[in-house]
Each structure stands twice: as C-alpha cells, then as structure tokens.
C-alpha cells in the first residue's frame, strides 16, 4: 500500500488543481473588473438613466447584484467547454486533424445518460430515491454516457478516419463533417422511432435544483445573495476530477508518455516500439470519455437536449482549444474557462450596456468573433508559445 502511494506523482495531481484555481480566479477577476468599470462609466449616461427608469436601480448596483451568479454560470459552462475542448486538443495533438464529429460524440453521451435517467424515472426508481442513491444514479448515468461516447469515438476513428490517414489534409476533415451530420440524424432517427419526438428532458430528482445560500449583503434597496446551485457544484466538481485524472494519465503514466511521444513524432514513436494505431485509438477513447461526461453534465445544467445540441458547445469548445493554443492541454483548460466567462458576461450584460440593441441573442456568435480575433492576432493561442506538453 505504502509502495503504491509512493509511486503516485503528487505534483501532477496538485499542479492542474492549482492551474484551475488560478485560471478561474484570474478570468473572473478580469471580467468583473471590466464589467464594473463599464458599469461605472456608463452609469451617468443615457444607458444608466434608461435602466433607472425601468427598474429604479443604478447600473452599478445592477451589475453587482448579478455578478456572483454570472461568475458561477460562467465557470460552470467554462468547465464543460474545457472538458470538450480537451477532446479536440488531444486528437489535434496526435493527428493534426480537427475531429469535427466530436460535438456529436458529446451529444451521444448526453442522450445515453439522459435516456438511462428517463428509463429509471419511468420505473419510478428516481422519485423515491434517497439522496445518496440519487447521486449514485447520476454517477451511473455519467459513466454510461462516457462509455457510449468513448466507444463511439473509437468506432468513428476506425471506420471513417483511419482509412484516410495519409491522404491530403482536407480529406479526413470532410469525412469528419460527414460523420457529424450523419450522427445528428441517426440520433434523431433513433429517438423519434422510440418515442415519437426527438427532444429529451432531464428528469428532476435528488437535490440538484436547490441552491446553497451563504449569506446576503445589502446593496442599496435590494440584497445581494451569495449562493450556488447544487448543479453547478456537481458540474464543476466532476469536471475538475476528470481534468485532474486526464492530466495525470497524460503526464505521469507510461501510456501518457506514449501519447506524448506519438504527438511529438509519429514515425519515431513507432520505431521506439509504440503501437501508434493503439495510441491513436486510445486518444480518441479518452477524448470521447471526456466528451460523453461533459454531455451528461451539460444535460444536467440545461435540462433540455435535442440531437443538434452538440453543435454550438462543440464549436465553442473548439474555439476554446484554439484560444488556449491547440494541441496544448493546459491551454484548452484556460481557453474553456476564459471563453465560458466571456460568453456568460457578454450574454448577461451586453443587453443592458447597449440598451437592448444587442443582447444575449448574439451570445452564440460571440465565440466566433473571439476565434477570428485570436486567429488574426495570436494564431498560436494564449499558451501556444511555450508548448510544455503537447498531448
């Protein structure tokens, strides 16, 4: 036992946690500073006056009142993006190829997990479950979603990408787009054949919808509530666990060393006795597992899913991977958190700051604007310069 404990590389367990805390706090502080200073600057202008007319609250108070919730929401979605982005970035690191179908692998994970919970709910198990059992079922759903998504990712690689290895760059990319479209309609077909409609709602059970309130701070006439919903804690907590696990796998195990070797130089890795095809399959498996788990977590957070649910999260996660520096795992983490924050802040405050001219309906294209800006000014991404580990 002690020998086993001794072999654990504690540094590789602590380092990613430290990074996550740093990135979360940093991006939260940065975005809050921008929002608050904008609010202070605009408070005296027509923007502040119109808000005063409507809700009788100053722009600064309004910003502060919403800030805790916005930060928590941003973090939650940011960690989901990070988990998906890791799938993109790992595959890109190994094959230099954008796995366009990753967003559908995410969607399949979400559907499998939610279908399990719906089935359990239909049997009446969920309604009477104790708190502990509710968590057990949720974990079961996540694991099942992970397995389905991981298996699918490996299968897709085997069928649609491996035969094309060595072809020109666009060929596997077009194939991946095809797989993505195909999977969307296959999900829709299966779902509409089994139940007549293709949307699924996550059943409510356990205490996931309740909120933990830490306290209230008086702000002018209203009160600032400090609290967090259980859902968000679960999403963030599971994402952190998975990301730490992945980091450990890649940076502190033999298999991880093989993955890094293949990413660095495929022919040489193969000469060193590494089975390159197996490592590539493994990369897809790991990416798929993360994507599937992210899918179930996404469903938990947003409740409603449809076969096209993967499209936007997938694109944003890809943006996050590029933002952080594609092929770089720490970068994907940073990119995911930053993008989640940016998007949530923009979605919550843009409407107020522009007097309703451009509100949250532009949230989805916000990511693309960032993507274009990053690609123009810093194509290697935020952390692309010093590639510490390319996995």
């Amino acid at each position, binding site marked *: 036992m002690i020998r086993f404990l001794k072999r654990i590389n504690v540094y590789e367990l602590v380092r990613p946690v430290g990074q996550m805390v740093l990135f979360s706090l940093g991006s939260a502080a940065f975005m809050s500073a921008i929002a608050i200073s904008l609010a202070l600057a605009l408070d005296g202008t027509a923007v502040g006056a119109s808000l005063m007319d409507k809700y009788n609250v100053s722009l600064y108070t309004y910003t502060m009142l919403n800030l805790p919730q916005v930060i928590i929401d941003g973090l939650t979605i940011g960690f989901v993006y990070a988990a998906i982005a890791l799938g993109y970035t790992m595959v890109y690191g190994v094959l230099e*190829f*954008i796995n366009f179908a990753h967003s559908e692998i995410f969607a399949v994970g979400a559907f499998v997990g939610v279908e399990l919970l719906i089935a359990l709910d239909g049997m009446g198990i969920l309604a009477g479950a104790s708190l502990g059992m509710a968590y057990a079922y949720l974990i079961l759903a996540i694991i099942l979603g992970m397995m389905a998504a991981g298996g699918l990712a490996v299968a897709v690689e085997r069928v*649609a990408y491996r*035969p*094309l290895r060595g*072809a020109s*760059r*666009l*060929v*596997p*990319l*077009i*194939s991946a*787009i*095809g*797989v*993505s*479209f*195909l*999977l*969307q*309609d*296959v999900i*829709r*077909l299966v779902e*509409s*054949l089994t*139940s*007549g*409609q*293709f949307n699924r709602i996550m059943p409510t059970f356990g205490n996931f919808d309740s909120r933990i309130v830490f306290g209230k701070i008086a702000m002018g006439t209203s009160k600032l509530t400090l609290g967090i919903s259980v859902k968000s804690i679960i999403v963030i907590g599971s994402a952190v666990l998975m990301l730490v696990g992945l980091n450990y796998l890649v940076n502190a195990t033999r298999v991880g060393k093989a993955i890094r070797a293949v990413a660095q130089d495929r022919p040489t890795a193969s000469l060193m006795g590494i089975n390159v095809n197996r490592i590539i399959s493994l990369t897809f498996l790991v990416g798929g597992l993360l994507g599937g788990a992210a899918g179930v977590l996404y469903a938990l957070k947003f409740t409603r899913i449809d076969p096209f649910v993967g*499209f936007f999260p997938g*694109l944003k996660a*890809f943006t996050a991977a*590029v933002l952080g520096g594609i092929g770089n795992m720490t970068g994907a983490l940073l990119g995911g958190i930053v993008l989640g924050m940016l998007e949530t802040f923009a979605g919550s405050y843009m409407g107020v700051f522009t007097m*309703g*001219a*451009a509100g949250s*309906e*532009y949230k*989805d*294209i916000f*990511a*693309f*604007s960032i*993507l*274009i800006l990053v*690609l*123009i000014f810093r*194509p290697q991404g935020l952390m692309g310069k010093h590639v510490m580990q390319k996995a």
Partner: protein
Amino acid sequence: MISSFFKELFNRVNRGYWSYLIVIGHIVAGSFLVYTQPRSNLAFLVLMTSFMSLYFFTTSLRFKLIAAVILALVIIPIVGARNIFYLEVIFQISVFAALALGLNIVVGFAGLLDLGYVAFYAVGAYLWAFFGSQQFYMLHYAPGTAPAALPFFLPGDAFYMFLVVGVIIAGLTGILLGLPVLRLRGDYLAIVTLGFGEVIRVLANNLDKPLNFTNGPQGITPIQRPTMPDFAVDWFNSVFGGVVGHNVSAAVMYNLMFYMFALAVIIVIIFVTRRLDDSKIGRAWTAVREDETAAIAQGIPLVKMKLAAFAVGASFAGVMGVLLAASRTFISPESFSFMQSIGVLTMVILGGAGSIPGVILGAATVTILNLQVLQGFSLYLNELRQSDAVIPIINFAWKDLSNQLDPAKYQRLLFGLILVLMMIFRPAGLIPAARRKRKIDLEEN
C-alpha cells in the same frame, strides 16, 4: 469485373454513328416518356440523364452544343410548363448547380474548404430583398407593426442592376472576410468560414432592432420581380400552347424566366471558370492546392491568389442570392443555414472537386435525391401509415410509426453518408477532374 464489362460495352457502342443514334434515341425516349407520363418520376429521370449520355458519348462538338441547347431551352421548359413540380426541381437544380460551380472554384481549384459558402448567397439575397421590397420604409417599425400600404423603394426592374451590385458586394464581403483568415491553414479556414456563416444567419435573425433591416425570423416579403412583358406569355402560349396542352400563367412564365437566368449564370460561371483555369491564376491555384510551401517557393503570392478564388466564388453566390430573392419573392434566415452550406459542399464532393461536369452532376443528383427520392419516400411512408399494413415478422403496424419519422427531413443523413462514403471510396468524385496535359508545342516556338 462488372465495371470492365460496362467499359467494354461502352467502347463497342461509342463509335461512328452509333453514339449519335444512342444520344438522339435517349433524348427522344426521355421526352416521349415524360410527355406521355407527366407524373412519373422515372420518366423525368430518363430525360435528365440524357444530359449524361450527351456528355459521355463521343459526338462532334457542334452536335453536342445544338442538342444541349434544344434540351435546355426547348424540351425542359415545355416539360416544366406541363408539370410545375418538374419546373421547381429543374429550377432548384440550376440554382444549386450554379452555387456548386461557385464553391467549386474555392474548394476544387484553390483547395480552400469553405463551410460558410451560403453566407455570400445570403448577402446577395438580403441585398435585393432590402432594396427591392418595402423594407427600406420599415426601418423604424418593429416586425409586424408596419402600416400596410408602404411604397416599394426601387422599381422591380432595378433587379437587373442588382445582379451586378450583388456580384460586387458579395465579392467585397469575400475579400473582407478573406483578408484576415486566408493566411491561416486549411482546417482553421474551414472553422472560421463556418463561424462566418453562422454570424450572417444570426445577424439576419436579429437585425430587426434597433433598426429593422431584415425583419428578423419572419423574413422579408414581398420582394419585387422584374416586369414581365405581356407579349412574352402570349408568345409562349401561341408557340408552345399546343404541346403544353394548356395556357401557362404569368407565374409559371416567371419561373421559366428565372430558370433561364440561372442557366445564363451557369454558362457565365463555366466560361469564367474555364478561362481562369487556363490562366496564370488558375495555374497558381493548382500550385497552392497541391503544395503551399512549394507554391511560395515558386514566388506565387499565396494570400492574393487565395483571395481571388474566395472573391470569385463569393460573387457567384451573391448573384444567385439576388436571383433567389426575386424568384421566391420571400426570404428568411432559415434558407441560409449551415446545412445548406454543407449541402452545396456535398454536391461538389459527390461530383468531383475541380471538375465542372462532375459538379453539375453532383448538384443534380443531390437535388433529385433531396426533392424526389426523400420526399417520395415520405409520401410512401404516409400512405403506409394510412393503411392497415403490418410488418410481418416483428408484427409492427405502420399506423403506429411516429409522425416525426419524415424522410424528407433527413437531409443531414443523406449529406453525411455521401460525404463519408465518397471520402473513403472515391475521394476524386463521380467524374474526377481531368488533369490537364499542357503540351509544349515545339514546332510553334
């Protein structure tokens, strides 16, 4: 073995007068079948495939040209006037063929994967929709609140001017988007163009405030068409009325006219594409597509050449957009989704990137699959649902089949399957682009 048998058979038949006889026979048989069975999809397919035999059999160029003109300008309009469903299919084929030919310049010649091609189509469509409708006077009204009797901003005949304006504006949009992103590697470009396509769609959806430019999700209607002289309808009826069997209305005549416009655009695109392909630019595109590094080493201005391809492709989409807005008299953001972009890409990939006849074949195949096969399958399923039929072994009554299962809506499945299968089994497409043999004529020099 089977393919070599067919090749042998084709070579046996494709000589001397036999090939002329077969082509003429095919056209006559197709026309006859469609004439006698105006509702049969199969007859229509026989007629449409006569274009293929015209392409594949060796005949003189003059014969090919005359036959193609008769087919496209006489036989097909008559068939369309007899059955307006065919007219719709033919019109869509010609629109998508034009779009696919435009995208072919970007994807096939320059090797740039553009996943947001429909965005330029949308730019053209919204351009004419804004200026050719009452939308200009609705700028300050929220959607649905504008008074009924607003004037039109421009007369319908300004459409002809906007065909040119559409080319210019869409081309400029292409350059503006291309300038920053064309420096990127191919797969980044794909994602950025995809993003741009979404940006245009979201803008079209939401630019109904603060100023109402696009009327939001409801879309803009009515959009004006160029005026149609009365004598055109009378002339068509007096000449072809006997063959068509009934007098056509101005509405059908309009559709015929837009089909002709689309054909004209296709001819222009083919002409431009071929001339460009033969020029210095075309050779630069080939070099860029095959090996970027080598192309730079040869002194080819990479970004400039990519930009040229991007702008040319975009401007053709722009002119088709203007055409679409006028022919439909209604446009909404729905028509410019990501799926449409992938649909056009599917046509290019299926036919063969870089190959003009291939791309046209791809556009026709995908459109017919989409409009006739999938929808026919939907109708068939609906009939089964109405009936009492039961699947024997598993004992499943068709009545219980979900209403959501509507094959006509499963275009993504179709596009996805085509893309994956083509990439794995025939990446060069159904009619691969012939690599041009550029002989240096020593005697001349």
